[in-house]
């Protein structure tokens, strides 16, 4: 069964990351890289996204012109920062995998439509 993991960053997480020394930050990235490597057999693709300020949202209204706005589609303190597609047996396997993720503090698990 295929799922997409949506990695979500919070303001606090960004602040914490910014406050780290370079060696600390390197270590955090190494841990995330190691997690990816550990689960390589189940990962089918994915990417880190560029920061939220680069996002552009288009709202399509039938009849009128699309409305283009700066920023992500949800105004909030939580921003999707990356995604990974995985293939595992069921939700429990995905949950187990995600529970060891060393990066951002929120992960949404969403199955792909069969």
């Amino acid at each position, binding site marked *: *069964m295929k799922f997409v993991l949506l990695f979500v960053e919070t303001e606090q997480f960004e602040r914490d990351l910014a406050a780290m020394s370079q060696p600390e930050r390197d270590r955090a990235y190494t841990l995330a890289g190691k997690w990816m490597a550990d689960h390589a057999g189940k990962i089918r693709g994915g990417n880190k996204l560029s920061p939220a300020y680069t996002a552009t949202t288009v709202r399509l209204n039938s009849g009128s012109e699309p409305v283009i706005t700066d920023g992500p589609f949800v105004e909030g303190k939580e921003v999707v920062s990356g995604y990974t597609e995985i293939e595992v047996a*069921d939700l*429990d396997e995905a*949950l*187990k995998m995600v529970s060891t993720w060393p990066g951002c503090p929120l992960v949404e698990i969403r199955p792909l439509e069969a």
Partner: protein
Amino acid sequence: MSLPSRPSAETDTASSHAELARVVRDYAGRLAAVLVRVTGDFDTAEDLVQDAVLMALQRWPIDGIPTRPDAWLFTVARNRGLDVLRRQDNYRAKLARVQWPVQPEADDRLRLIFTCCHPALPRPAQIALTLRVVCGFTTAQIARAFVVPETTVAQRITRAKRKITDAGIPYRIPDPDELSTRLTQVLAVIYLLLNEGYLPTARQTESRDLLDDAEWLTEQLHQLMPTEPEIAGLLALIRLHRARADARFDAHGGLVLLEHQDRSRWNRRLIEDATRLLERAAQQHRPGPYQVQAAIVACHTQARHWDDTDWEQILLLYDMLLHLAPSPITRLHRAIALRYVAGAQAALVELDALACELDLYHLYHATRAEFLRALGHPHQARAADQRALELTSNPAEQALLQQRINWT
């Protein structure tokens, strides 16, 4: 042909309802477990069982409970299945080959419980699903038990079943490394049933006794996982509550507080059994919140009179409980024990620290009223009782509080 006898009095109706509920509960979950295994489809299997249960509730009061209720339910569910699965040949063929009796393996029933209580489902859905799938409640019975509209319950169940299928919630027993956290979820669901069942409501003849169902579920779990001390702890807790159930109400259905209960009406045999169960669980040296809560109740039951209560031991157990599972409600209960160890003034100080967190909890104010009264502040006590009265919608509790406001 003999006509079934018509129930003559309300008690007959009540006892036949209880009997019906018991039989349905004994078999519905097993049937669901079998059908999920056979069809591989949780949603369909659950629908078939529900149809069979509804049919039974319609027919059995008229025809009487069949000699083989399990075979009866199975036949109805199977025929219905062959009917609705017309377009799904693979399920249909499998179902057609099944002959009763098929014994579900113990594991099938555990799988069912763990799936219903999966953490990816919201708590109200876990409760509704467990009652319906494992205990054979109808949607209407769940709605009555929790005083919510039937459509709400139906919607919760539909959404939960859709999520189980579409989100890939597995139908299996969690791995050993997940088991303890997942078991916590299951026990939390049962504990909520216990709380709901323990609420001092006048017994409605039509509604099922949630306490009964909570005990039954825990018994099943205990049989299936006999070495889990927290399951035994919860089972002991439920039985200790049941042992004292009769003494909680007077002849007019009024609530009687522990202090004033006629302890000769407690079921001593049940208390002894539950206490032994708890002692056996404790020998594993894996304490948990349910074992400790049961130990607190056990401590109360050991006192022949209110004045013999070992409050120091109870206070100690509350400290342990707070350490295992911190909660403002537990601190409130601890404050009550503290009153009898260190006096009402010390206990009141404890309570005041909880003012923010428990301001909307009626028992917080009712307890405060008792302490204030003990300290000689009747006016403040009455105001606190008044506040408690505003916050509870339970008739038995309202009556008791109103009495206190009027008489003291």
